[in-house]
């Protein structure tokens, strides 16, 4: 009974972050592919070695607009990608960044 309560609690916390954001495995996989090819050189393989790029593991979960704007228009030394990635691609990237490397 105790174990169930803890589990329920954990689910509730997880749910608060993910409530508005549910990602399909296909979306995450697509985002992982785009990330590995285009983003990992600066943000690190699997986001784990960000080098000079922003540490995407720390990107706030409730700031998708900021993410989309940065990817589309560029930010600081990051160039704009808006003419290369379609909205679907950027959604997939967001899915990967939010949920792609969760153990």
């Amino acid at each position, binding site marked *: 009974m105790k174990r169930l309560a803890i589990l329920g609690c954990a689910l509730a916390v997880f749910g608060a972050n993910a409530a508005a954001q549910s990602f399909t495995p296909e979306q995450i996989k697509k985002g992982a592919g785009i990330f590995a090819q*285009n983003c990992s*050189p600066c943000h690190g*393989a699997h986001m*784990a*070695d960000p080098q000079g790029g922003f540490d995407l593991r720390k990107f706030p979960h409730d700031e998708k607009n900021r993410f989309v704007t940065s990817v589309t228009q*560029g930010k600081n030394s990051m*160039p704009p990608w808006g003419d*290369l990635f379609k909205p679907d691609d950027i959604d997939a990237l967001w899915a990967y960044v939010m949920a792609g490397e969760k153990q």
Partner: protein
Amino acid sequence: MKRIALATTLFLLAPAPAYCQSLEDLKNDGKNTDNVLTYGMGYHQNRYSKLKEINKQTVKRLVPVWNVSLASNYGEQGQPFVYDGVMYVTNAEYTVAIDIATGKQKWRTPVGWDPATPRVVCCGVSNKGPAIYNGKLFRGTLDAYIVALDMQTGKQIWKEKAADWKEGFSITGAPQIANGVLITGMSGAEFGTRLFLDGWDPDTGKHLWRHYTVPAPGEKGYDTWPPGDAYLRGGGSTWITGSYDPDLDLLYWGTGNAGPWNPATRPGDNLYTASLLAIKPKTGEMVWYYQFTPNDMYDWDANWEMILGDLNVNGQKRKVVMQLNRNGFLYVLDRVNGKLLAANPFEKVNWATHVDMATGRPIESEISKKVRAGEKIELWPSQWGAKNWPHAAFNPETGLLYANTMHNMRYYKFVPVGEYKPGQRYQGIENTPAPRQDDLAIGHVDAIDPMTGKQKWRAPTPNIPNYSAMLATAGGLLFTGKQTGEFVALDIDNGKTLWQFQTGSGINAQPITFTHKGRQYVAIQSGLGGVNQARMAEDLKNVPRGGSVWAFALMPE
């Protein structure tokens, strides 16, 4: 009447010497110390000056004379050029002319490019310098154009497109002038491209020739590629300026990694990637080649400076070309015919056991067999190389090379390359950090014997390797810079720091020395940037951005 005619002729000729650098001037660069007309302070790229007013005894009086902002935050990697009392400086955003006597900017010409261009620039938005000839300054642009400017006014004379950046091409390197031809290289081997050298008419910008570093079907060397379109994605960039021997009329230009990095789709030697090409500048014809790393899979660019010198080899004086290769071996070749004379490791190497002197080929180790089989390996030197682009100096008096080297290991593993998409990464590699493996510093300033690869001395740079080129002088000094901002003078006999000055931003550029009105100057661009800035962002977080150029001279006694 005769006298008038003569006077007119003189009048017509007179302005010419003031703003015309002849081929003879370029060939003799270094003899007239008032000028710096070539990349590497001489066609031989020795980065050595016979000047010695600034020396071990006097360097303590070295002080800044002026500093000029370059108004850019992208990072400075350039080598300044000097002609007739004016310094010419480039970065990714501007070309700048500075009056040496006063430190005042004479003109500044912007370089425009689409803000998305850095997508195809793998390793830092920058520019390594111009070429100058016959009153014109030539430079490449980030978006792969070649531009000629009037040296007196900075006004554009011509601009030609070398390639389309949206396909993955970019230019950060400096052009070269050889035998009256402007020669330019190209970056892009991380983006599924096939690279080349271009020859241009300096007067008009007319395209004269293109020499692809990866052969097409039917061309010599194509049989080292699998059938299909692998050669179109084969890499072989030309992003560092080649050297030139005017007597042999040969350009020595290094080529970059094979593409994609994952070699699964390109069995074979993959000529002429990771190679040295000896090229006729008039036509682009290749006279001979030497491939350092057949079937390269570690980004073993062979682009670094090709240092020309005369060495005593087994009692015989030989005209040689030397390179501290990214792959960890120091190569010496006869530059007349490309014969290999020496190939010894100058840092820790585990991807190959040695270079077979009979065949000239490296013998891959068990480590390399493992990575080819799909395993994750510990790679020495790391993919960044035992030495990266920061150029070494050669002192013809001592016969030693002086270089900023690296002592790093990284984990390395191949992953599927994925579909080719123009202008997007095409590599197939996972390159991840590893904990420090030993107590050695991760970088050194090294004095190295070219024939043995052995160090005469090492001066450690403990936590951040230097990413500045080296300058050696007859004053017994080495000048180089740190990414933490210090411009330093070292004792050429032991590497001891004799003098340093904080330039206000990181140094990842190329020092020069010259004379103005009889006084010796040293100059360096400062402005944190380039690939190591990205790699070591955490260590360099308190080094501010901001490009400028500094000039130093001795304070009068």
